[in-house]
């Protein structure tokens, strides 16, 4: 879907300082070589299968299906991957690519800590140095993940600028990359940033939809009627959608974090409330004020707490191929508890946004229809925060 200039319709591009241009050009050339290199693909597949635990399961959620009384529900279990989320797919791909390029150091941004932990994991495995930038606010909210990253050998740099959350961590990682390029690869965690990142990250995450297609074909002999995933930057969603984009009968539904509601200022629903802009290397939709200042955003989910969305999602929205729906904190927390009780699966609060929308959609569909929900990560990291949300005095 990417055109030669890294555009998805009007979205995408390379809006970065001149200092980084040769770095992204070098990255694009290396990626274009290695993506077709049999040895690279063999090594990556081995890492996916033997290390990360792929293919992840496609699980028929019989109790959830019965309780909702409509479409059949399948769960794509990215939560079962090593490190507990889909993030490892992208990180193994990028870390291996960086290593092939002769880089010895990985830097990354992280919000909730999932991408930081995944990057620290890959760095440990491949013998690379690792520095993770994390908003100071998030280092407090996710102290356990900070410890995990350090345990894995990474340095964690708390970011105190701006709102001290995910967008500021991205800005600081970009600044760091500008100052040290020769030995350093910026392992971006989502389908965002300057070209070629949205394409590279999508390709490494596309394993999700490739597996869904094959697994559902085996179980049901057909394609799903809808695929539902949560969207922050949008990497698990684009990974879940990608191999279905050419199948117009499959509805693709991205669930954005509405926070306290799209009519409040405390929201992170970019497609519902943002407008076209240029930030973090890309043209896409961003939450911003009338003068283009990037808005502080809010969601209960640190992983969806980002004021932009990946350029390919912006494009899929423009052409009407995918739908994007807002899901509030309340709805996500209800879904977090619902899936735990109904199926014995505690989803990440991010993924619970997708579960919440599926709970609304499934009862409107007949029993011969099929919905696949991507459970992008596991919810252990969120238990304390959700307990507090429900008024319990629980701290990690």
């Amino acid at each position, binding site marked *: 879907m990417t055109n030669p200039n890294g555009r998805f319709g009007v979205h995408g*591009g390379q*809006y970065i*300082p*001149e200092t980084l241009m040769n770095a992204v050009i070098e990255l694009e050339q290396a990626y274009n070589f290695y993506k077709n290199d049999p040895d690279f693909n063999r090594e990556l597949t081995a890492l996916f299968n033997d290390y990360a635990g792929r293919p992840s399961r496609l699980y028929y959620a019989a109790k959830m299906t019965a309780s909702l009384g409509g479409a059949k529900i399948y769960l794509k279990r990215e939560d079962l991957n090593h490190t507990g989320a889909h993030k490892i797919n992208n990180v193994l791909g990028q870390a291996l690519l960086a290593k092939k390029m002769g880089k010895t150091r990985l830097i990354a941004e992280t919000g909730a800590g999932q991408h930081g932990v995944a990057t620290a994991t890959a760095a440990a495995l491949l013998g690379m140095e690792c520095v993770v930038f994390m908003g100071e606010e998030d280092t407090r909210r996710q102290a356990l993940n900070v410890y995990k990253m350090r345990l894995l050998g990474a340095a964690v740099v708390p970011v105190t600028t701006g709102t001290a959350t995910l967008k500021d961590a991205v800005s600081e990682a970009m600044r760091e990359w500008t100052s040290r390029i020769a030995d350093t690869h910026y392992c971006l965690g989502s389908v965002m940033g300057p070209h070629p990142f949205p394409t590279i990250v999508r390709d490494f995450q596309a394993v999700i939809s490739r597996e869904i297609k094959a697994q559902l074909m085996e179980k049901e002999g057909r394609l799903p009627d809808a695929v539902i995933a949560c969207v922050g930057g949008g990497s698990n969603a684009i990974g879940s959608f990608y191999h279905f984009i050419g199948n117009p009968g499959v509805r693709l539904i991205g669930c954005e974090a509405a926070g306290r509601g799209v009519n409040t200022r405390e929201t992170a629903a970019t497609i519902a409330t943002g407008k076209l802009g240029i930030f973090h*290397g890309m043209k896409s939709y961003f939450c911003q004020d009338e003068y*283009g*200042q990037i808005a502080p955003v809010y969601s209960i989910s640190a992983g969806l707490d980002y004021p932009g969305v990946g350029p390919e999602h912006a494009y899929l929205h423009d052409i009407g191929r995918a739908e994007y729906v807002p899901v509030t904190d309340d709805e996500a927390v209800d879904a977090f508890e619902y899936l735990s009780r109904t199926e014995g699966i505690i989803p990440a609060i991010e993924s619970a946004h997708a579960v919440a929308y599926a709970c609304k959609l499934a009862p409107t569909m007949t029993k011969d229809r099929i919905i696949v929900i991507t459970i992008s990560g596991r919810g252990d990291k969120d238990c304390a925060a959700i307990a507090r949300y429900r008024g319990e005095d629980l701290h990690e």
Partner: protein
Amino acid sequence: MSKIASAFQNGKAFIPFLTCGDPDLATTAAAVRAAAAAGADLIELGIPFSDPTAEGPVIQAASLRALQGGVTTDKIFALVRDLRRDVTVPLVFMTYANVVFSYGTERFVKNCRDVGIDGLILPDVPYEEKEDFLPACRAYGVDLISLIAPTSENRIAMIAREAEGFLYLVSSLGVTGVRSEITTDLGAIVEVVRQNTNIPCAIGFGISTPEQAREMGALADGVIVGSAIVRLVEQYGQAAPPHVGDYVRRMKAALGELPVNPQ
């Protein structure tokens, strides 16, 4: 010759940067007038952006102070309109792509022309993306300034050949901010620039002392100083303008000791 090129006719050019609205617009106006009176050849006016990814801590903090003080793009246009009653040195805006794009690029650049802005520096718009902004800049006679970095290498000639106004040569890797030492082989970069364009070339990022200004000025046609001046504003607040004037005078005097290259 564009008005910007004329800034390089008075020996080596000294180009100070100020963040508009830090700590308030009246102080910015007084600091611009002080800098112009002290011999600044061209002045960069920063329109603050919430997330300035090319800036170091000093200008990040100034941007935040200015935004918290309520400055907006429209208020900055009004500031420039007021300055143009008596300030004649070339003025350029330095800001980020989204500030211009969200305002409406054509409307923004037309306003630049109407209030008397001569050029536009967008550090997050490289050569490959300039088509978003160049047509409007051409239409309204506002120079879109190109940047060259220590990592530009094979890109220098391509950028220099299409450059307008002046070329902004980034001295070092990383973001804006004071540096004790600049280690890039800038002489070699300037040589490639000279082979490809006649427009002047100014070096910025990391320069703060008269010694550095002399050293960098010997290599190019001018020097740009941002963080060191913004730090004066941070230190002295509303009392900063005379300190900015003194600083500009010292830096311009240091450059005045250098022989002028034949253009």
